[in-house]
């Protein structure tokens, strides 16, 4: 065995490999993405990106039904998408073990909301395991598979951003080949018509009560004895903070947080003077304890919102009088510190999405947006998007606007990325066609899933395992859905783009514009920086409205950072004084 530093995500991939998982499926989403990317590199396994989380889970269910160990990965909001099959999967159960990794993002480092996946575990009535470092992340994949097979139920492995993306040592072992469990036709188990569903509903209750019993002695529910004055019940990353802040406390660390070991918790609670529940996000453990009549303090002391940290918990413990108030330690006075301007993420220099938002803003359209790099086009100074709810929402929302306010609808455009269109845009567009809407949809096709780190999808022509694949013909696909007006334009050609938008808005019925140009990070262009003619530059700053990281105006003259600039020439088109010039080269940027 060798010791290796691994992120939680690398460790989960390693665990899946070592514990004989044959199939991994998922849809990218921070902080879960690297699990499948790492898993895909191991020999003798099969891995795929599905177009969305629901499909990914359904694929894994098939693999488990056929008797293989299967893994499915997603971020917390992906569980919403996969919830439909998940809740019935709890009824059918599995054959080979099935683990669903859900990565929560407290503090919303890169998500549109916070949600606590443990609520889904309870809703679906499936067990949930929570690792607190990379070693546990690896080990718990094995345990989850074991529980899944032993109790005939899918298991959720819930991580959080901090566990997924932090590194600690992991003991690396060998792969253990797990033979396929034979498949036997059993319609009462797998065919959920109401009569069989009712039987499986009862079976689920029995499996859950067996799991409750198992939880009482599960080795992942572990007591770290202390002095007994303060007792803490905790799980996940919070355990690490508690260990550091309260070295003398007795700790009950719950690795299995649903279903909970009621007897163990009651016994632990009885042995301490004062009981704290330290859990990130929702009062999930606390609610259970209160329901059992166990006096404890949780959210009265620690917040239910945002991410925990040692500093935050230290302040909470000080306020509650559990830790002494901080003595001033001669820290430097920083009260006169100059304001540090924020460094927000921006669309890259040369990003093909940039010009689109410049135009949408200039044309004063209502823009329903979606999730991807291009969501950044909603921030000033581009300010080209009005909304962003969840993946795939843009098209449905534009249709809704058009149905109740036709005038507004005629000035509304939905924007959606290519990966997002494959994920859940198709059905929205089909709905527009079917219900006689006339929405204009702009598909921003940069030939990748850029936001999460350039994953492939059904329109890129490549799979997660690096094989070539048939790339869906987007134009034909959109036509096949029944859209009469479909055009493709280069989003770096502002004039063509504006014309396409005007025609689409004037068209009768639904219209789709495919703005196609690969992500600038995919195709490294030869540097071809724009040149400034300082005699012509008036310092008007119009070019700065593009929010391009390569452009600035210093001493009333535009300046182009020749290292950052890739020569997309958008600024050349925006400049009214012809002060910006595409550098003369033999080739163009096409």
């Amino acid at each position, binding site marked *: 065995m060798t010791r290796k530093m691994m992120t939680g995500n690398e460790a989960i991939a390693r665990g899946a490999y070592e514990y004989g998982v044959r199939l991994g499926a998922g849809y990218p989403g921070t902080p879960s993405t690297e699990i499948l990317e790492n898993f895909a590199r191991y020999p003798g396994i099969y891995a795929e990106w599905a177009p969305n989380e629901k499909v990914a889970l359904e694929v894994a269910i098939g693999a488990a039904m056929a008797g293989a160990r299967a893994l499915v990965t997603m971020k917390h909001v992906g569980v919403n998408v996969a919830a439909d099959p998940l809740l019935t999967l709890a009824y059918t159960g599995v054959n080979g073990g099935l683990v669903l990794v859900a990565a929560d993002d407290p503090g919303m480092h890169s998500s549109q909301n916070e949600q606590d996946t443990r609520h889904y575990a309870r809703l679906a009535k499936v067990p949930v395991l929570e690792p607190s470092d990379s070693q546990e992340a690896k080990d718990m994949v094995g345990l989850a598979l074991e529980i899944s097979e032993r109790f005939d139920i899918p298991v959720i492995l819930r991580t959080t951003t901090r566990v997924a993306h932090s*590194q600690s040592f992991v003991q690396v072992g060998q792969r253990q080949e797990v033979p396929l469990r034979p498949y036997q036709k059993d319609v009462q188990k797998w065919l959920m018509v109401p009569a069989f569903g009712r039987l499986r509903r009862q079976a689920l209750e029995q499996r859950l009560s067996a799991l409750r019993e198992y939880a009482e002695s599960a080795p992942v529910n572990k007591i770290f004895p202390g002095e007994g004055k303060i007792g803490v019940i905790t799980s996940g990353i919070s355990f*690490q903070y508690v260990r550091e802040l309260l070295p003398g406390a007795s700790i009950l660390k719950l690795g299995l947080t649903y279903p909970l070991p009621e007897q163990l918790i009651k016994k632990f609670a009885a042995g301490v003077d004062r009981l704290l529940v330290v859990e990130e996000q929702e009062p999930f453990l606390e609610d259970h304890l209160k329901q059992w009549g166990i006096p404890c303090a949780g959210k009265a002391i620690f917040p239910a919102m945002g991410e925990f940290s*040692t*500093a935050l918990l230290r302040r909470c413990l000080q306020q509650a009088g559990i830790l002494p108030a901080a003595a001033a330690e*001669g*820290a430097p006075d920083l009260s006169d510190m100059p304001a540090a*301007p924020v460094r927000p993420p921006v669309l890259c220099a040369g990003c093909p999405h940039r010009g689109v938002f410049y135009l949408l803003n200039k044309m004063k359209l209502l823009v329903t947006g979606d999730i991807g790099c291009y969501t*950044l086009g909603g921030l000033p100074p581009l300010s080209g998007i009005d909304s962003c709810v969840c993946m795939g929402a843009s098209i449905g929302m534009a249709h809704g606007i058009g149905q109740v306010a036709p005038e507004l609808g005629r000035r509304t455009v939905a924007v959606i990325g290519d990966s997002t269109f494959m994920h859940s845009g198709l059905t929205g567009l089909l709905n527009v066609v079917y219900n006689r809407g006339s929405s204009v949809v702009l598909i921003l096709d940069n030939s990748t899933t850029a936001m999460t780190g350039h994953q492939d999808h059904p329109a890129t022509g490549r799979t997660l395992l690096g094989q070539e694949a048939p790339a869906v013909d987007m134009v034909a696909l959109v036509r096949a859905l029944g859209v009469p007006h479909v055009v493709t334009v280069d989003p770096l050609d502002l004039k063509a783009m504006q014309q396409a938008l005007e025609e689409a808005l004037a068209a009768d019925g639904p219209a789709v514009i495919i703005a196609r140009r690969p992500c600038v990070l995919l195709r490294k262009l030869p540097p071809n920086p724009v040149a400034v003619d300082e005699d012509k530059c008036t310092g008007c700053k119009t070019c700065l409205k593009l929010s391009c990281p390569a452009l600035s105006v210093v001493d009333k003259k535009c300046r182009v950072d020749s290292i950052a600039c890739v020569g997309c020439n958008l600024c050349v088109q925006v400049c009214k004084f012809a002060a910006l010039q595409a550098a003369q080269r033999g080739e163009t940027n096409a």
Partner: protein
Amino acid sequence: MLEKLDILLVGVGGQGTILASKILVNAAAAAGYDIKMSEIHGMAQRGGSVVTHVRLGSAVSSPMVEEGRTDIILAFEQLEGLRWLNYLKPGGSMILSSQVIYPVPVLAGLAAYPENIPGYIAARVPDTLVIDALQAALQCGNAKAANVVLVGALAARLPLERALWEQALKETVPPRLLEVNLAAFAAGYEYRKS
């Protein structure tokens, strides 16, 4: 062996902070430390601030260093050094690259880049070392090695043998860039204020 050492590496996406953290972790791992490291990626890939927390010790629990309790900040850019200054403990050390990278709101004229950041920091943190890492890296033959110049400056202050660092460099950088990086490391290790 140190009981505990908390280091924050801060910079701008694309500056090589992650590689620098890897070199540090490899050297410390070879010396037998328990280590935890934490970084947040995602939106940061699009030119935003990046920060890596590295904690060494005999046994480490939390993967994150704490505000006001960090031993050393290694800052790859001036403004980022300022932004994280409150993480330093009283008596802590700042190693600050003098490099400046303007955030987009500054480029767009919507915000001002503070003046004389090194002076402000040095006035409050007696143990501040300001390094022109970019220039030093250029002299070694590659501006991209500025991150390793800073690693060298950090190495000179830690009780880890120099050979461990050089071995860690060999494990992390591609062979064709090793020579430049070893030179950059030495430049940082032997850096003297002129």
